[in-house]
């Protein structure tokens, strides 16, 4: 049996919007699931079901209101992503966590290739080597070569998404969080992304991915959790389902 990389237990997230007369919004409640090492856990559900919020909670972009997130580090230590310090979260992001957001929020005036290479250079990979690795992903993702040194802030949504994917894939984190990574890509590119993600998995990257495209999700995921109104309402194992 595979070890569990991340144990999500009783996680809940609510928002209080003070500027809207303390309006209370439920993100999600009582979410529990295991992410085994090397697995792809898919999260499906309609807009507003809480799936993006869940993903952001795993990355500390959102703070949770309850529950725990026990993560086993490369060194074998178990840390609760809910309670570790901000500094430790930043270290984990640099070393083991990756996040592919739906929308790239590019740093102004940084060329696409440098932006994508940054997680690698932060880890001490020499700049030239990091760029080389990124270039391979750019090629696979068919990002036109004349854009490599361009500023992503001027790119289309689909081009930005490819920069974003190359950035996460090149850094090959132990746990990669994907939020609608293919929403702006056409079918042929989506297929390329699927095979790139599969290759990443083969090399040991564990993934949690949010996608509204359930067909794609079932193609990739070992388990698909479906969310509705902030709760998990269904758990399916597509691989088992197809063989059954």
């Amino acid at each position, binding site marked *: 049996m595979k070890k569990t990389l991340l144990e999500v237990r009783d996680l809940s997230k609510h928002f209080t919007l003070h500027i809207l007369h303390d309006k209370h919004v439920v993100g999600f409640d009582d979410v529990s699931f295991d992410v085994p090492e090397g697995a792809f856990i898919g999260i499906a559900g309609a807009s507003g079901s809480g799936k993006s919020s869940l993903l952001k909670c795993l990355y500390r*972009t959102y703070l949770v209101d309850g529950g725990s997130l026990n993560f086993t580090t490369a060194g074998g230590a178990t840390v609760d992503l809910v309670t570790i310090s901000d500094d430790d979260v930043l270290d984990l992001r640099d070393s083991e966590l990756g996040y592919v957001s739906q929308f790239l929020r590019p740093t102004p005036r940084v060329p696409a290739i440098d932006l994508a290479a940054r997680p690698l250079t932060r880890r001490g990979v020499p700049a030239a080597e990091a760029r080389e690795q990124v270039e391979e992903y750019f090629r696979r993702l068919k990002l036109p070569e004349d854009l490599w040194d361009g500023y992503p802030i001027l790119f289309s949504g689909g081009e930005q998404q490819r920069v974003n994917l190359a950035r996460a894939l090149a*850094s090959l984190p132990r746990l990669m969080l994907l939020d609608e990574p293919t929403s702006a890509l056409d079918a042929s590119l989506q297929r390329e992304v699927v095979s790139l993600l599969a290759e990443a998995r083969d090399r*040991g990257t564990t993934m949690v991915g949010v996608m509204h495209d359930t067909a794609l999700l079932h193609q990739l995921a070992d388990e698909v959790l479906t969310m509705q109104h902030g709760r998990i309402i269904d758990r399916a194992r597509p691989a088992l389902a197809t063989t059954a």
Partner: protein
Amino acid sequence: MTITQTDPVNAGQTFRDTAPVLRVENLTRIFGPGCPDCVARTGPEAETNTCPTCGSVVACADVSFELRPGRTIGIVGESGSGKTTALRCLYGDLAPTSGRAYLSVYRDGERDIFEADPQDRRRIRNFHLGMVYQNPSQGLNLLISSGGNVAERLLAAEWRKVAAIRDRAAGLLGRMEIPVSRMDEIPANFSGGMQQRVQVAKALANGPVVVLLDEMTSGLDVSVQAGVLDLMQDIQRQEQVAMVVVSHDLGVVRLLCERTLVMKNGRVVEAGVTDQILEDPHHPYTQLLVSSVNM
């Protein structure tokens, strides 16, 4: 096509050096006579910095944070929120009313730098800290050459070879895109953006463990700001220097800072990873701040 990538995941350790270079505990600065009510009767709930009992101004109170090597923390808040006062206490321009601060490089981080005698305090500032002020005239002597301004920091840190000082000054000014041909010119002749870049060169000169930046781009035109911020990001990538960035501008903090403290009426009302502060602000003031800007 295959990807010939080596697996970098397990190359480094998960957590870097976790010992902070700077640790600040309950930093408080009160202007005025002070009284036992000062802290209790001021702050975000009271919506004032002025103590109703004695009229003293509680510029900042109970500011605490840690900073690890090479990390950047931002302090945001409106003017009068106490962020600049806190920074100036750390640099030694102001004496705090109470509180402690520890630097890893000063007596192994075991002695409060606020308790250091004036000579040690000066050494700490000369050898281990750098500061960039909002107003260049505070951080630079505008009437000595820009090279001389950078040299002053090196001389303070006991560099005693003119050729080496000139090389280092020229290198730093060059990196800040000040032409070497202008290093013997006085900064009074320079534009605001150039003056700020000279300040950065000066602040970095002695290889500090922490650089303190106070509203460094606030006085600049937007296009000039962009250039200075780009250079700061380059510095962050290339130097292992930790930074404290004080700004009222969330855009600056988003670009430069991994963590952010939000201050209001002299208190830290919220602290977190910068993207959390921007995307999931909790304190009403932070929510107001974030919703007020178009990012």
